[in-house]
């Protein structure tokens, strides 16, 4: 059976797309039209995603991978069918995609594969075949970049604290791009992991995955990619990237909250010690010890998030129906409009690349004389929803010399009128605080 509904769009039609997102019809702050420009934090959901989740609960809900009844069969089919659909969206094989709670959990899953293997090896426990590469010694090195979200920084800091490994990072330039020339002095024979973001959530910068993975491969390091901000916005064919692990979240790509994905290269997944343990992820269990199932099951303990998987599969249908290339082109037009508008506004400094080459739609900026929190408040009063603060990338803010920024991040359901409403509200804010 199939419980995934065909999406309702066929061609690029802004008003029709907007109509697919029920929340965009509501008003905020005393009747203002909602101008939602915070999609880098989370995206809104089309009706087809909501319907798919609801229909799953109404027709097929059961615990998957157990039970001898028809509902359990149908629920399992819905769950595994969704895995196949989502894997196809990124060009992957279904068995190479692990469902996690979110991208943060996916990155922790990889970091814990190292700390768990390291702890087990100290006590002589058996590791999976090939598991030795996950055992760290004091002085081994983990490399990240200076533009990481905390989700791709803190788990590695914790791994270093537990194992004696040393954290190093690739710096960023004043323009907000990676200083790739510095890589030679940072990567070396002790580098065990290179983990970096595909697209910065704060700066908007799109990184050169090939250049980074080639350098990491040259020293034999595991390559981990945080694709939270790229997969929702551009076509990503994971097998063609020379990486070992890719984490991303469902809720930023029109899917529900509570589900993320972690793609693992099969030979890497086989060698990894599990993170969360318990039911479903085992092979055999005795009172004294257990053996574990093959991936991806090894990494999915407990009853999984079936409805969310079904919703995320419907989101992939919606995105593919519009076309990822068309979505990327639409976003680039909107990004250009944002950057041009900000360039015309006195006292604005964009934090990140100001040209639209190799950059996504998330645009951070500061306004002289107005703190981002105050700016966000007045924008909100005009119905414009943006993110303010350090965007879970506090070290990146420090590097760029700002305590916080305001960020606009348009997505496929935004149009020129949204950008113009934002720019008009920005002018209002400058007048409100007397800096116009």
């Amino acid at each position, binding site marked *: 059976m199939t419980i995934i509904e065909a999406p309702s769009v066929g061609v690029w039609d802004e008003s029709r797309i907007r109509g697919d997102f029920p929340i965009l019809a509501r008003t905020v*702050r*005393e009747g203002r039209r909602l101008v939602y420009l915070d999609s880098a934090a989370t995206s809104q959901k089309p009706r087809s995603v909501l319907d798919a989740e609801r229909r799953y609960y109404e027709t097929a809900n059961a615990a998957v991978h157990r039970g001898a009844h028809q509902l359990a069969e149908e629920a399992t089919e819905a769950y595994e069918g969704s895995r196949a659909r989502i894997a196809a969206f990124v060009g992957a094989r279904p068995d190479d995609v692990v469902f996690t709670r979110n991208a943060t959990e996916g990155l922790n899953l990889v970091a814990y594969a190292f700390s768990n293997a390291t702890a087990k090896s100290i006590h002589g426990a058996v590791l999976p075949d090939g598991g030795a590469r996950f055992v760290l010694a004091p002085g081994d090195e983990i490399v990240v970049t200076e533009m990481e979200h905390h989700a791709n920084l803190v788990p590695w800091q914790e791994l270093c604290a537990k194992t004696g490994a040393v954290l190093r990072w690739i710096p960023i330039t004043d323009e907000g791009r990676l200083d790739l020339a510095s890589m030679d002095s940072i990567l070396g024979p002790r580098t065990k992991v290179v983990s970096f973001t595909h697209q910065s959530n704060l700066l908007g910068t799109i990184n050169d995955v090939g250049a980074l993975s080639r350098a990491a491969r040259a020293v034999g390091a595991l390559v981990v990619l945080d694709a939270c901000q790229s997969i929702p916005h551009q076509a990503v064919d994971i097998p063609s990237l020379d990486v070992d692990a890719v984490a991303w979240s469902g809720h930023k790509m029109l899917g529900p909250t509570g589900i993320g994905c972690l793609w693992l290269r099969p030979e890497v997944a086989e060698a990894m010690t599990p993170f969360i343990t318990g039911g479903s992820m085992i092979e055999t269990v005795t009172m004294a010890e257990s053996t574990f199932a093959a991936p991806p099951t090894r990494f999915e303990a407990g009853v999984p998030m079936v409805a969310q998987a079904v919703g995320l599969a419907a989101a992939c249908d919606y995105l593919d129906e519009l076309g990822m290339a068309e979505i990327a082109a639409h976003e680039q037009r909107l990004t250009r409009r944002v950057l041009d508008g900000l360039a015309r506004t006195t006292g604005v400094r964009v934090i990140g690349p100001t040209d639209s080459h190799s950059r996504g739609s998330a645009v951070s900026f500061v306004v002289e004389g107005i*703190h*981002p*929190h*105050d700016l966000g*408040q*007045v924008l*909100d*009063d005009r119905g414009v929803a943006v993110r*303010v*603060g*350090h965007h879970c990338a*506090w070290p990146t*803010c420090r590097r760029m010399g700002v*305590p*916080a920024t305001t960020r606009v991040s348009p997505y496929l359901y935004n149009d020129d009128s949204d950008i113009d409403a934002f720019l008009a509200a920005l002018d209002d804010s400058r007048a*409100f*605080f007397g800096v116009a």
Partner: protein
Amino acid sequence: MDVDALYQEIILDHYRNPVGKGLREPFAAEVHHVNPTCGDEIDLRVTLGRDESGHTMIDDISYDGQGCSISQASASVLHDLVVGKSEQEALAIEGAFHEMISSRGRTEPDEDVLGDGAAFAGVAKYPARVKCALLSWMAFKDALLQAHASEGTALTAFDAEPDNGRNPQ
């Protein structure tokens, strides 16, 4: 519009011309507080003294920091309202401010107690800004506790008889 109620002229005045800003010596305790959701930061020092009856007095609050207008103006108002008061009065003002800010707009501020602090009543309607308004006040309470801890004394509010000789200066 609510946003006008939020950004009262009194608040913007304190933001542009903060009272008592800058770190001074001597001090009894110094704390550093942050609002981790937005990166607002404050360094705050308290200087304590005694009046003729032996009551603990707030001789000075000095501070420095960065953040939005609400958090910065709030620190200025804290200094304005509390310096020169007894610790007991200061804690009563802190309690009234905290109650008003946490009331979601249901509590009418007592201007006799709160002075310029009453202008923050509009903040209570914006849950995301409550932490901004409370940053310096939480830092102040923490600094008081630390000052007492380092002196081995108790906070006035928890000490029925501050004059009983257990508070050697």
